[in-house]
């Protein structure tokens, strides 16, 4: 639903599905992800692969996030059980413990610069990269997708983050 839209910044809150996978970057993992989600693993750290409304980011050398930007017919929990059969992989359904904010508009960086120290400059945070950092003293993940930012954080910090974003837009 639309959280706020003013001073050329729009923030929408979405309900997305997300799978967090921990495991080393092995051919077995990339083959498994390819077969289950039709997307390949990014090569380097912090890169994002995007393919038909599914994104896969490499958050560090052994941590992967798969986010479905639109409803998917895939049975998340059954896929997770399948992945977990491999003792060297840990997959978790992260969908319900997170909030997902889509931030768009020309002023989005100017507003974010009010509540986070993170460097959004193109050369430091090019499109199709992800980062984990602090926004308004809250641990967040940021996904730089073409002309929008996807920001996620733990649900119990959700109100705190949203209220600070709205406040930053208003003042």
């Amino acid at each position, binding site marked *: 639903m639309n959280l706020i839209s003013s001073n050329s910044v729009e923030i929408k809150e979405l309900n997305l599905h997300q799978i967090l996978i921990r495991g080393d970057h092995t051919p077995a993992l990339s083959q498994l992800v390819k077969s289950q989600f039709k997307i390949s693993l990014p090569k380097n750290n912090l890169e994002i692969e995007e393919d038909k409304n599914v994104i896969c980011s490499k958050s560090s050398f052994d941590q992967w996030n798969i986010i479905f930007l639109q409803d998917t017919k895939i049975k998340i929990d059954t896929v997770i059980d399948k992945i*977990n059969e491999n003792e060297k992989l840990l997959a*978790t359904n992260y969908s319900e413990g*997170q909030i997902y904010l889509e931030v768009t508009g020309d002023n989005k960086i100017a507003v974010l*610069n*009010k509540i986070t120290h993170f460097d959004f400059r193109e050369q430091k945070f090019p499109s199709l990269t992800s980062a984990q950092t602090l926004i308004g*003293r809250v641990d967040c993940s940021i996904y730089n997708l073409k002309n929008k930012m996807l920001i996620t954080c733990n649900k119990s910090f959700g*109100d*705190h983050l949203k209220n600070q974003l709205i406040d930053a837009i208003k003042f």
Partner: protein
Amino acid sequence: MTAQNNKDVTHIAFHQSINFTFDGVKYRGFKGDTIASALIRNNVRVVGRSFKYHRPRGIYTCGIEEPNALVQILSEHNEPNTRATIKQIYEGLEVESQNCWPSLENDLGSINSLLSPLFSAGFYNKTFMRPRGFWKKVYEPLIRKAAGLGKPPKPFRTTSTQLHHHVDVVIVGGGLSGLLAAKSLAKTELKILIIEQDGFLGGILKNSNKISTIENKDNKLWIKELEKKLEGLENIKILKNTLATTYNYINHLIAIEDRTTGTLPLDGNVDQILHKIRADHIILANGHIERLVSFRNNDLPGIMLAGSFEKFIQRYGVIPETNPVIFSNNSSCLSLIKKLIDLNCKPQAYVDSRSGDKIEPELLKIIHKKNIPLFTNAHIEGCDGKKQVQEISVRDAEGIITKLKSKMLCVSGGFNPDVHLFTQSKGVLSWDDEYLTFKPDKSFQNTIVLGSNAGIFQYSKIVNDINTKLSFLDHEPLLEIDLTLNDTDKYSIEKLWETKHEKESRWSKSFIDLQNDVTTKDLRQGIQEGFDRIEHLKRFTTNSMGTDQGKISSINALGIVSEILDKKVSEVGTTIYRPPYAPLSFASIAGRGTYDFYDPERKTSIHEWHKKNGAIFEDVGQWKRPWYFKSHPEENLYEAVQREAVHVRKYAGVLDGSTLGKIEIKGSDALEFMNLMYTNNFSKMKPMSARYALMLGEDGMVMDDGIISKINDKHFIATTTTGGAAKVLSHMEEFAQTEWPHLNVFLNSITEQFCTFNISGPNTRLIMEKVFKDIKFDNENFPFMTFGNFTYLKSTVRILRASFTGELGYEIYVRPSIALKLWEDLFRFGKDEGLIAYGTETMHLLRAEKGYIIVGQDTDGSVTPHDMDLEWMIGKNKKDFIGKRSLTRTDTIRSDRKQLVGIKPIDPNDIIEEGQHIILTSSIKPPVKMLGHVTSSYVSPNLGHSFGMAVIKDGKKLIGSKAYVSSSSKGAFEIEIIKPIFIDEENKRLVS
């Protein structure tokens, strides 16, 4: 001989007059005036009283370095210590002078100046000591009342915001050098931020008459065109009314922007922005500051620094005095004299300490042409007058004193590069023997210093200096610029820190720190008493410790000290320049991060249900947890807990345990990892079973506890205490990544992926069977400490049979999306079985009745498993786990350590209080030997009396004996020491 307007300036709107009040009197100024320039327009000379002697003080400068003109802004929440030379006026502004009572004119405090011989530096340390006790009752209260400058402000809620910047280059100072540097970097596509403390760019181009044309254009035009060009470029941003205050390590700059210059800040609007700037290169071009000369009564209102006098004319369009006397030891006053003459005013006299042959020909030419009385090789001996300058004594080369009738003396003691920010950047200074000042020498960070800030006081060197210093940024080299000067190309100066008084007297004073009333005699006395190190002298005399931080006098103090000690000034050194450059408002530092944004308020998924059903919350870390539930509006904590505690043991109760930490551990070496992290041995645990586990620090002390559910040898789920969640996860990650990277194990926090409902009580099984129709909860199918994965409303649910209350109980782990539905279903089915919701206080009571400890309350980081009766949790034949080795050290292996016991009062009406101590006697006359303290205590409706748990020395041996517990109300009362378990010692209910 009074103030006169200079209408030909662009920064003052002479057509817009503004009314404001100063000490209740109405005055008129113009749009763009500061309080100082407006008061000068109205010939107001006395603006405040000095800190210690309460001597009258006038406006001494025209900028941030002002020591005297500090005022209180009544119309802005009584903001104290505001610089009148910076704060612009607006319609309805109410200003009050500071540190004087009953009024500025006749201030009782000025009695101090009569007693001044006694109040010399450091007198506090040698006096007010006798008789004993008088310091607290008499002297200190008097001193405190007299101290401080402004009155306390009114309560104010900050509306300022913060803004982070990431740029390639920051240029501090939009003056001549700053603008030239920006011009040369314009085409490099570097992202550049220019910071200017005034509302207009230009620096000395707009603040002085020194340069009249630049590149054959009038200053104002040149600035306007360059600004338009820079504003047009996408990679350059200009911040005006913004003062850089702090230069931190690694090129991190803090600057404060005033958004309401010249207007009344309306509550609720953004009044200030704190800019936090990261830059690869920081260019300091923030110029220089003029310094004073010490002479007799150099604090009389009507004495002003020459550069500031010129700035009032040039920048603010007011001539403070048409015929001032000018005194200087350097070449800088030529531009001021020319400006006065242009405005057909004339200095009443020009006094120069240098001998005639050293004085610039151009200066002499204009003086003779306009037959301005000239004194060379001469000093100002002193000034006299009642609350302002009326007579100026000039001592010529032969020592003859001439007395001039005048109300204004302009003084220039020379220029100091403004090195405050450079020293904050951890660069070091060196003394310049030609310009007699400290200037930046070796920088430590990517710091570039330009212009007079770098100690370059020669116009013809500026462009070459910029080209050499910016070449590595492949900037566009500047061509030589031609300037028409009302100044000599090169600035020259002769040493002069203070002049000799004609006759010594106890009451005559020549000042070094005007705000803190520090005289040159204080410096001499300090050195005489052994405080010959400059850091000692500063603290002994409080020199340069006022709100101006000695900007116009600290170098003079070094000069005088170096002469007294007969040392080079560079040997005397300077004290440390402590940030900020100028006082920084608390409100801007706090920004939006207060009240509801101070710290997150973490809520569980069913928080709203709790609120609707009478929950009273307590803060547990950042979480809000239901403390207890009011069954009716008047029910208090005690009554609610007594009701809930009985109810759970008789029927059933459910607690929202979602705040407890939950960590998923998986990998081929998960079992080995868990055996190393916890004391327990998980090897022989059957899959789908659970165990209460203990975690120690490497020091062997209890750090956290929780239930470990083993899915299989490669996959575990661990719960932690609410407060310990973050710490336990970090603890595990640290050891997995740094100590045992060879182990294949992965960790994941799933605290927020599941809500946890802990239901317990005799009727629990009935309720669970109604809610989960297809699950069998009897002992065979669902033994104690086992768990299973089930589905509820097409979502996976994990149910674990465990209980913290000692009753039959289950922990339900459910996904947030259906959590509320399940919670409501528990009540829909459980109502007839008497199900209630209960809070943390009842949980504490019930678990204590069962003898279960709470880590963080019954443990305080100094107790081992053995102390807490938990040796059974230590895996028997385990080779190693974190903390194991510490358990066998001499002090931890002692048998008489503090151990966990239960206590109950002999007289059932006595109430045991948490935190009180177990003692052996009934008297509490100190010192009393303490065996240990009460870690938990409650009044138990199930036992019918107060009871507690305590950790006491040699506790196990004392079980069965009597002792005393101290009490906040009745000294101490007798108790019995028993085993720390009060209900269902055989644990029958858990397995019923």
